[in-house]
Structures are given as C-alpha cells and as structure tokens.
C-alpha cells in the first residue's frame, strides 16, 4: 500500500506506526519492525548525548530508492522508515523500520535488508558527546559486510 519515510526531530509512537501501516489491508498476515535506540556506551566510552546530522533531500531520496529495491526483491505490501535527527540521549528512539507482507519470511528479510542498506547508503552522521569530548562516530566495516550478504557491494568505509 504505502511506502513512506520521515526524517524528523520529534519522537514517534511505535504502536501507532504499526497500526497505521497495516490499517485497511486485510492481505497482511505479518508485520516486522526494527527499532534502533541510543546506547549509553559506544567504543569504550560513556555517551552523554549525540547529535545526528543529515543531508536534506538526499536522505529522503536514498531511502525511497532502497524501498524501491526492497519492493523488487521481496513480496511486501507496505513499509515505513522513520529516522530522527538533532540532539538525542541514551534510551531515545533513533530509527524505525517496519514492513508488512502476507507471510513472515518476506517482512523479516525486507526489514533486515532495509536496515543494512540504510546503515551504509543513507547520509546520516552521528556525533557523540563523551567524557573525553565530542567525537564523530566511525563507520563500521561490519556494516559494509552486512549489505554484501544481499549481493550489494558497499564501499562506505573504503578509502579513496
């Protein structure tokens, strides 16, 4: 039915989002979701807060493209991506991905695919405030490897 993305500073309600995603679609027999939250520790330091920056325009465009790709690969009916930007604190919700399908396999897979894609292709950057000072979060090679499982070569961490 609908494939939508929101980039926003405000928080969101997971229950409301899940209800809205499958409302009025009786074909749906499975709903899968992922919720990412702010951890209090990262790379050995405590995190007091983080600031999320993004590239307005490209962010929405890149997530729309990954939803198109998910539609081609998996038998899914609808998807919703929410990503927060701005100032966030430990325990805050950051990112939400939800997918509906007739059977669980497609929505499980599409949900993981969308997150793997987002981690290496969507233009967001995290800056953490730690006791040692503010620092930009390093990209992880393991995220490139996660996308490679789907047959997509990611070069997010590659020097060039």
């Amino acid at each position: 039915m609908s494939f939508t993305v929101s980039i926003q500073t405000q928080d969101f309600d997971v229950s409301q989002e899940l209800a809205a995603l499958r409302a009025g679609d009786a074909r749906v027999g499975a709903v899968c979701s992922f919720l990412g939250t702010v951890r209090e520790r990262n790379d050995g330091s405590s995190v007091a807060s983080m600031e999320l920056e993004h590239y307005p325009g490209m962010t929405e465009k890149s997530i729309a493209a990954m939803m198109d790709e998910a539609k081609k690969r998996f038998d899914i009916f609808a998807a919703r991506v929410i990503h927060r930007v701005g100032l966030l604190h430990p325990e805050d919700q950051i990112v939400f991905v939800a997918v509906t399908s007739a059977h669980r396999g497609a929505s499980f897979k599409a949900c993981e695919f969308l997150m793997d894609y987002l981690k290496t292709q969507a233009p967001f950057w995290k800056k953490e405030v730690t006791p040692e000072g503010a620092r930009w979060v390093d990209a992880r090679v393991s995220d490139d490897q996660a996308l490679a499982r789907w047959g997509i070569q990611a070069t997010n961490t590659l020097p060039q």
Partner: protein
Amino acid sequence: MKVNLKYFASIREAIGQGSESVGTQAATLQALRDELIARGGVYAEALAHGRAVRMALNQDLCDASAALSDGCEVAFFPPVTGG
C-alpha cells in the same frame, strides 16, 4: 560552469562551511576534488586522497569518474553512520 558544493559532518567542520558555489572546468568528481585539494590548507587535508571521502552528485552516491554538468550539486562527506 558553476557547481554547488556541500560539505557534511567532519568534512564540513574541517572546511569551516557547509556549502559554497564554485566556477570550475573539472569534467568529473575526481577532477573537482583535485581542484579543491590544490587550494591547500584545510581543503587539502579534509579531501586528501587515501581518506574515506564519499561523494554524491545531484544527491546520488557516485564514484570519482561521474561527469559534472553546469549547475549540478556535489557533496563531499565522510562514511555515513546513521541507523
């Protein structure tokens, strides 16, 4: 031709501004990056070859061989860390 440049995250901070408009004869992203590096100083450091610098042309991730056109939007940024 005129190109609209955008910088994000650590590259934006290093260069000291988020956007600028430049006149260039560079045909590709690679040539444009080389022109900026030739300015020296913070540009040479932030965009140095061998660093993980991601490039987007008109809001699509592109490799260095992508061809520029008049009025295009080019962005330089570090590896993304969302999610």
